[in-house]
């Protein structure tokens, strides 16, 4: 049950419990977390026994998909489990003790669909009950396991018989099946599956992605950090540091020794601010949170905001800033038409959706109001009125602001 969806419903506002729950998770809380995976052993169709503790599968991950396949081709089913948390995927090799042999069939359709999806195979042997397997594509939760059909062999019968019900009612019988992995084309005899080629690739060099976001959304920000036109003669880097932060000190020293050209650097200290100007510290966090699906989470320090001469927040850096990246970014941030969507991501790729995300300053004002930052919201509106006024719901925003101001008055 994705409770992220539970907050929906009529008349539910920010203070409803489901929204509160969403806020908690976004701020880093756990909910039914650290639960270990479960395995139930089928005891001859009569009962199931919880054997999780001896399977080695009982990891405390936030598991989602489970996909089965005989990955190492030793006749038993191995397991891939995907997770919400890291690592996002784990592989578990089946080492079960005292295993029987197995028979695995890959089916190829001729008159039916070639994947033979929907084909049902029944294995019959003397002295034990029949087994039935069906080829599916998509089961469990967001999972697709192998299409090969796997039968454990609990019988030594040499005359086992396989009946295949191909989609479209054709029935095929295969006699005297033996352990192994076979491929059966519709209407033909089984052939032992041969691994055709060995896939090889040139190992890609390890490239550490730079830990920064060159923002896809261009958001005016100067009023929040009280940046004047004089401040913005060059781009400005606002760097938030902490006292007990090695990387912060390292960064500071590096800049003292070798100041980056073409921009102004302003170093802020979170301990000092929490005493002298807690409002600014909160606005810093709020600005960070605005871009990401998180609330008040501890951001890795140092964290730095790069503001362009136009007063727009253009990049967010986490950790020590690499000089080359910074120089490159300085060239980019003042430019006009760039593929900001793709530049903003840590890895490359293709988009199916055509719409390019753009900043909506109005949402930022909403965030300010949600956090009760009325003066900051007012000065932001004053500073960015020309942009905000183009948003059709701007009048409603002003109404909300005025209502909040009224509430504040004693």
């Amino acid at each position: 049950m994705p409770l992220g969806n539970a907050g929906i419903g009529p008349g539910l506002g920010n203070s409803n419990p489901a929204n509160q729950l969403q806020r908690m998770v976004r701020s880093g809380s756990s909910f039914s977390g650290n639960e270990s995976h479960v395995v139930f052993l089928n005891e001859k169709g009569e009962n199931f026994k919880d054997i999780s503790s001896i399977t080695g599968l009982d990891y405390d991950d936030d598991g989602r998909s489970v996909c089965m396949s005989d990955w190492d081709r030793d006749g038993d089913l191995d397991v891939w489990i995907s997770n919400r948390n890291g690592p996002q995927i784990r592989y578990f090799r089946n080492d079960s003790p005292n295993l029987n042999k197995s028979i695995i069939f890959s089916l190829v359709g001729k008159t039916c669909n070639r994947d033979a999806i929907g084909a049902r195979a029944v294995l019959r042997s003397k002295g034990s009950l029949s087994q039935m397997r069906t080829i599916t594509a998509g089961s469990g939760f967001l999972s697709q396991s192998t299409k090969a059909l796997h039968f454990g062999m609990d019988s030594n019968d040499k005359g086992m018989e396989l009946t295949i019900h191909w989609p479209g009612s054709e029935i095929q019988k295969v006699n005297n099946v033996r352990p192994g992995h076979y491929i059966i084309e519709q209407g033909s005899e089984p052939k032992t599956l041969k691994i055709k080629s060995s896939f090889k690739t040139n190992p890609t060099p390890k490239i550490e992605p730079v830990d920064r976001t060159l923002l896809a959304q261009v958001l005016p920000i100067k009023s929040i950090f009280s940046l004047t036109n004089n401040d913005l003669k060059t781009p400005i880097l606002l760097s938030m540091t902490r006292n007990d932060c090695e990387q912060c000190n390292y960064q500071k020293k590096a800049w003292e020794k070798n100041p980056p050209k073409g921009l102004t650097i302003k170093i802020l200290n979170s301990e000092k601010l929490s005493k002298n100007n807690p409002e600014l510290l909160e606005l810093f966090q709020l600005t960070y949170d605005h871009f990401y699906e998180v609330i008040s989470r501890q951001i890795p320090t140092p964290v730095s905001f790069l503001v362009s001469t136009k007063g727009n927040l253009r990049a967010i850096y986490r950790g020590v800033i690499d000089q080359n990246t910074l120089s490159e970014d300085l060239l980019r941030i003042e430019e006009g038409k760039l593929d900001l969507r793709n530049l903003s991501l840590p890895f490359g790729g293709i988009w199916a959706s055509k719409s390019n995300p753009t900043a909506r300053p109005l949402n930022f004002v909403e965030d300010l109001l949600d956090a009760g930052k009325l003066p900051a919201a007012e000065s932001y509106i004053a500073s960015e009125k020309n942009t905000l006024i183009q948003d059709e719901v701007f009048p409603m925003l002003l109404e909300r602001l005025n209502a909040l101001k009224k509430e504040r008055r004693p």
Partner: protein
Amino acid sequence: MNFKAVITIFITLSCAICCNKKKGQAEKEPKIKIQPTVEKSEAAAEIIKLNLSELLSSLFTESKPSILSNLNEWTKIAERIKGSINEYQKLKISIYGIRYDKEVIHVKARVELKVQTQTKKHIGIIAHFDSAWEEQDDGSFEILSIGKPEKLTLNESPQLWFANQTNQILGSEPVFQNHLSKGLDHWLLRIESIHGIDAFINNGVALGDFNGDGLDDLYICQPGGLPNRLLMHSADGTLVSSNVTGSDYLDHTSSALFVDIDNDGDQDLCLATPSGIVLLENDRGEKLMLRGTLQTDDVDCHSLTATDYDLDGNLDLFITFALGSLSATNESSFQFDDARDGGSNQLFKGNGKWSFSEVTDLTGLSTSNDRHSLAASWHDFDLDGDPDLYIANDYGFNQLFRNDIDNGKRSFKEIAELVGVQDRGAGMSVSWGDYNRDGLPDVYVGNMYSNAGNRITNMPDYLSESTNALKKNYRRFAKGNTLLVQNKKGSFQDFGPNVSMGRWAWSSIFADINNDGWEDLLVANGYISGPVQDDL
């Protein structure tokens, strides 16, 4: 505080009702009324859990308090795990029932013990037991009595059945090191949410032989802003990134399938994204070519499945949605135990040559097509030669659509109630099998199990103003997974509690893991382990 989150959600459940009643009064936000007894008992449960952990940890040691050593059954357990290696000892207490009887607090709990002996034997023990407690003036709790361990499950094995070989298979792969080794919480702090990433997002995995070498490859779906990854199975079993172009979609992808859409002998790829179903043709195992995108009516996509429902030789695609366009609006009629404001699932009939027709309405699948559908699976449950469709719905009833021919046309009829597979609850996963080898397909449905949910919904004053039927429904939401057994053709029965405790379960599937011919059950679970470890 730990228990707050849990209380929050079960109060949410009761709130969902009052909100439904208050329809149209949007400006009046509901006030949360935390019943003092719920809060109090949840706080007590948390402390008693710690006390029980401490008490039962003594089973690992030589000196046991008399309250335990007086009971033969606990001593027997202690004997079994005697001399085990300290660093492998694990103990977990779950409290699933708490009841106040005047001054005495009655607690129902389950203990899971896990050890490895000096001889490298693995032992696991699960037991249920009652205990009684009394609150002291200083707020601490004193144990009055502890019952015998009951419903004992004992496991012993000379080795673990599975070995985590992730590092051996993926550890030196840069895509793993830089990207997949890090979880959602890492990326939430780094990718603008506007790209389609959020704290509750779910992304799937597909296995299939992309390059036709006889080995399954792996496709792992990602939230918006991170590229999906196609990883190839190399001859030595390791998984390496491919040079295949056209696979690295950045859109949120809930689910993917390797299927031979054009029946040309290789595995094409279909992706469920908010922009629709992306159809990618496999070009000689070297690249993927975009052959079109099937537009969908909603965006909160979840499961993607393929079948050939009309047996014409062309694969058809079915996609499910949780939220719908109404869900977030005031028009919504969200009801926790019977939500009908979900998205519209859609069936696309394959016509061959990459052409598809939308046939949801035409085939009768638009019946009650307004639930929060998280999972679906096709299976010929009545063995009449065509695939039927089971849909697991969150917040309510599941659906079984029987594939019929009506006047020469394919038509689906919803028969879940008729055959007994509605399994009202928080459906999250579907898997078909034949666990008892009687030749009739059975279905295992993933649901939510919650200790806190069981504690709270079983309290006497939980939803005190509501009907018993409603209380039962809500209890059902914390009960866990369901195995629905087809006893005779067209009639299913709930197998019962032995296969329920899959925790907060997601994929819950049949698979014969020990080659004995009997299909076992695997359950991946756990909701959200955030950076702040504050849950129960």
